C-alpha cells in the first residue's frame, strides 16, 4: 500500500517536472557558419544541461522583419527568439513586434559583478535588442592582383583609385556604408559625414564619387558573393562581413588579405517577439540568460571571428576551435585593426534609408 502510494507520488512528480522543463523552441538565425557558432557555443551546452528542451532553427533572419510583421498580422507568431542585426531590431521595436526588456533583470551580470547594462554598455542600441556580437563590413583584396611596385592597399580610398589599383571591385547593392566611404574619400571629415549625407547636395556628392568607379563594380546582395568573387579572381577587392573574409583567408587559404581601414561596425543580437505565452517566455528568458553570459559570448569567438558584445568577454577570447590559431588578431575590435573605424549610424539610416535608397537605386539603374 505504501509502496504504491509512493510510486504514484513519484510518477506525479516526474510528470510535473517533465511538463515544466520540456520545451520546443524555434530560433531564427542566418544559417551557415554564424548559426553554427551559436549552435556550438550556446545551444549545445544549454540543451545538454536542460535535456527537456529541444531547439529548432529557422534560417530566416534575412527577412525576419517582414516575416514577423506578416505573422503578427496573421495573429500567429511561431518564432521564439530571433537573431537580427541592430537596425532590424530597432525597426521591430518601432513596430511593436519585438518585446522591450530590462537588461538588469534578464541578463547575467559579468563575473566581476558589473551589471549587464554596464557590461554591454552602448551595444544595447534599442530597448528590445539583446546584443551578441560586433561584426564589421570591411574589405578584402587579392594579394596576387596587386600591381608590381605598388604597396598593398591599406587605405579605404584605394577603392576609388583605379589608376594605382586597377581591377574590379565588389560593393553591396545598397547605399549604407558605400555612401559614407564615398564621402570620406571625397574629402569630407569623418565626423561630418552624416551631416553632409543628410543634404541632397551631400547625397549627390557621394553618388558622384561612386560614379567614378561605377563601371568597375559588381554589386553584391548576399554575404557569400564577395568571398566567391575573390576566390575566383573575378574581382581585385570587395566588401563583405569580416567573418566571411576570415574563412576565405584562414580556412580556405586563398591569396586574400584584409584591409581594415574604415571598417563599419555593426551589431547582431537577439530579439524576443511580442506575444509569446508566459510559459514560452520563461523558457526563452532562461535560455537568453545563459546564452549571453560572459563565457558563452567569449566561446562563440572560437568558431567565428566576430567580437563578443560584452566587454568582460574580450579577455576570454582564445583560439579557433579547430584550427587552433589565436583569434584575437582576427577580431574587428583588435586595436591594430580598429585604428580607423566607423559605427553604423542607426538613427540616421532609420530616417534616411528610404530616401537615399531610392536615389541610390535610380542612380544604379541609369
Amino acid at each position, binding site marked *: 500500500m505504501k509502496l504504491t502510494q509512493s510510486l504514484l507520488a513519484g510518477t506525479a512528480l516526474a510528470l510535473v517536472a517533465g511538463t515544466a522543463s520540456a520545451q520546443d523552441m524555434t530560433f531564427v538565425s542566418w544559417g551557415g557558419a554564424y548559426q553554427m557558432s551559436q549552435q556550438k557555443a550556446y545551444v549545445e551546452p544549454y540543451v545538454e544541461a536542460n535535456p527537456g528542451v529541444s531547439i529548432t532553427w529557422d534560417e530566416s533572419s534575412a527577412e525576419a522583419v517582414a516575416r514577423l510583421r506578416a505573422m503578427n498580422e496573421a495573429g500567429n507568431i511561431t518564432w521564439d527568439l530571433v537573431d537580427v542585426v541592430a537596425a532590424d531590431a530597432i*525597426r521591430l521595436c518601432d*513596430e511593436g513586434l519585438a518585446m522591450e526588456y530590462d537588461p538588469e533583470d534578464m541578463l547575467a551580470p559579468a563575473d566581476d559583478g558589473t551589471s549587464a547594462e554596464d557590461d554591454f554598455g552602448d551595444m544595447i542600441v534599442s530597448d528590445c535588442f539583446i546584443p551578441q556580437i560586433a561584426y564589421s563590413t570591411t574589405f578584402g583584396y587579392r594579394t596576387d592582383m596587386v600591381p608590381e611596385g605598388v604597396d598593398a592597399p591599406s587605405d579605404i580610398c584605394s577603392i576609388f583609385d583605379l589608376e594605382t589599383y586597377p581591377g574590379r571591385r565588389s560593393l553591396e547593392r545598397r547605399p549604407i556604408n558605400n555612401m559614407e566611404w564615398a564621402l570620406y574619400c571625397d574629402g569630407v571629415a569623418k565626423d561630418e559625414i552624416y551631416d553632409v549625407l543628410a543634404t541632397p547636395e551631400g547625397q549627390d556628392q557621394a553618388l558622384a564619387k561612386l560614379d567614378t568607379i561605377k563601371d568597375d563594380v559588381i554589386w553584391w546582395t548576399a554575404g557569400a558573393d564577395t568571398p566567391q568573387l575573390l576566390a575566383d579572381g573575378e574581382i581585385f577587392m570587395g566588401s563583405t562581413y569580416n567573418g566571411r573574409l576570415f574563412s576565405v583567408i584562414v580556412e580556405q587559404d586563398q591569396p586574400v588579405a584584409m584591409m581594415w581601414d574604415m571598417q563599419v561596425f555593426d551589431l547582431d543580437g537577439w530579439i524576443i517577439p511580442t506575444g509569446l505565452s508566459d510559459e514560452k517566455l520563461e523558457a526563452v528568458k532562461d535560455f537568453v540568460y545563459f546564452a549571453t553570459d560572459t563565457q558563452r559570448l567569449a566561446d562563440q569567438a572560437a568558431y567565428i571571428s566576430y567580437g563578443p558584445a560584452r566587454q568582460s568577454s574580450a579577455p576570454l577570447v582564445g583560439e579557433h576551435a579547430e584550427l587552433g590559431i589565436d583569434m584575437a588578431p582576427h577580431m574587428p575590435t583588435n586595436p591594430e585593426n580598429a585604428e580607423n573605424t566607423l559605427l553604423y549610424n542607426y538613427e540616421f539610416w532609420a530616417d534616411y534609408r528610404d530616401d537615399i535608397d531610392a536615389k541610390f537605386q535610380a542612380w544604379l*539603374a541609369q
Partner: protein
Amino acid sequence: MSDTTQNGPMLAADGTPLKRSLNRALRRQKLRALMLIAPLLIFVLVTFIAPIADMLFRSVENQIVSDTLPTATEVLEDWDHTTGAPPGEEVYQALYYDLYLAAEARAHTRLGTRLNYEYTGVSSLFRSTGRGLEDLGEEYQDILEDADDRWGEGAFWYELMTGTGDTDARLVREHRARLQALENARLTGDVGFAPSVEIKELLPQTTFAYTDFAVFTALMDEDVVAEEDPWEGVYAGLAQDLETADLSGYDGPGAEALVAAQQTLAEQAEPINYTAFFESEDKDWVSPDIWATIQTYSSTYTGGYFLNAVDMQLTPDGIEMRPDGQRLYMVLFQRTLFMSLTITLSCILLGYPVAWLLANLPASKANLLMILVLLPFWTSLLVRTSAWKVMLQQQGVINDVLVWLGLVDDAARLVMINNQFGTIVAMTHILLPFMILPLYSVMQGIPPSYLRAAKSLGATNWTAFWRVYFPQSVPGIGAGSILVFILAIGYYITPEIVGGRTGTFISNRIAYHISTSLNWGLAAALGAILLAVVLLLYWAYDRIVGIDNVKLG
C-alpha cells in the same frame, strides 16, 4: 382544370407551373453540384483571390494616419499650408494627446515609419518625441503633488473624474473606438469608468486625457482604473483646464483640491504652451513642411503609393513628377517588359526546334530528349543560376575557352554576367521547358500527313513548313509565350543573383519593399500595376491572336 389553364403556362402534375417546377429541380441539382465543389472553391478563394484582393487594398489603404492622430488630423483640416506658417496651438494641443495615447500603445513609431516614406526624418522625429511626451505633464504633476499628496493617488483621481451626477458613457465608447483603431483589434471588456458630465464640461482636456488613460489601463493593461496613477499627460490637461476654468459653481468631489490646485499652478507654473513644448523636443515640429505632409496623407485612402510607383509624388501642392535623379520605377517597368519579351522570343527561337524534334523523333529517342528537357526542373533554381555564374563570369568556363581558342584577348575577357545579357541567358534556360512543353503537345497533334499533303500539292519543304505546319503550331507558341512571359515578368531570384546593375526587374524592387523597407503599400501598388500590365497584355493578345487559339495540350 386543364380547361382553365389551356391558355396559361404549362403545368406540372402537381399543378405548379412547369417552368417553376423545372427551375426548382434544376436549382436543387445546381446546389448539390455547388456543395460538391464548395471546399475547392473556398480553398481557391482563400488562397488565391483573397491575397490579390488584400494586395489591391493595401496599395491604397492609408488609415494609419487618421487612426493614430484622429483629433490632430481633424483640427489640421482648417490649416492652410500655403501661408508658410506652422499651424496654431490647437493643432499642437490635439497632437499632444493623440501622440500620448499612441506612444502608450507603441503605435507612434509605426506612423513614423509610414510618414518617413513621404518625408525623410519623420521616423526619428516620432520616436524621439514619443519618449519626451511625459516631460510636459511631469512638470505640473510635481508641482501639484508637492502641494497636495492626493494628486498622486489613483483613487482620488478616480473619484474626482467620476463625480456624483450623470456620467457620459458615450465618451468612453468613443475612446474605446479610438484605441481599437490604434491597436487594430477588437477590445472587449468593461472599462469600469465613465466621466461625470459636470467634470467633462468643467475640465474638458483633463477628461479627454483621463478617459484615454482609463480605457487603456482597463483594456490593454487589464488593471483597475481606480488603483492606477494617471499618466503625466492627464496633469498637462489639468494644468491647461485650470488656467481658464471657473470653479465657483462646482461642489463635487475634490472641489476644494481643484481650487487649491488652480491657485498653486497660477503661482508656481508657467502657462502651458504645447507649441513651445514640441519646438523644444525637435524644431522640425514647427516646420510647415511636416504638417503639410501629414495633412496631405491624412485621408483614409490615398493614391500616393500608386503615384510613387510611377515616379510621381503627392505633394501638398498636388501631383508632380519626382526629381530627375529619383525616377526609378518607370525605367524598371520598361526594362522588365523589354527583357521579358526578349526572353520569350529567345525561348521561341530555341524551343521551337527542340519541340519539333521531340514531336518527330521515334518514341524512344523522344523520351530521352524529353528527360533532358525536363532535367532542369529536377535541380534547384539556385543551383542552375549559380551554374550560369560559373559559366559566364570573366574567369568562367566560356571566357576560358574563348581565350584558349585565341578568340578573345586575356585582358579583354567578355562581360557576360551581372548584366542584362546574363539575366536573359539564365532566365531563357530556366523558362525554356515552359515553352517546349506546350509547343510539343501542340506539334504532336499535327499529323505528318499535312506536310505530305502540302508537298504533294507542289510546296517546297520551306513553303510546306511555313504555310502549313507553322500556322498550326501557333497555338503552341501562344500558350508557351503566355506562360514564359508571365513567369518572366514576375521573376525575381535569377535577376537578383545575376542581374547586376542593369539586369534587375521590377520584382526585385517589390521584394525589397516587402522584406527590407517594409513599404508594403508601395510594393502592393507596384504589384497591382504589374498585374494590370499582364492583364492588359493578355487582353491585347486575345484581341489580336484570340485566346481560343491557345492550346496547352
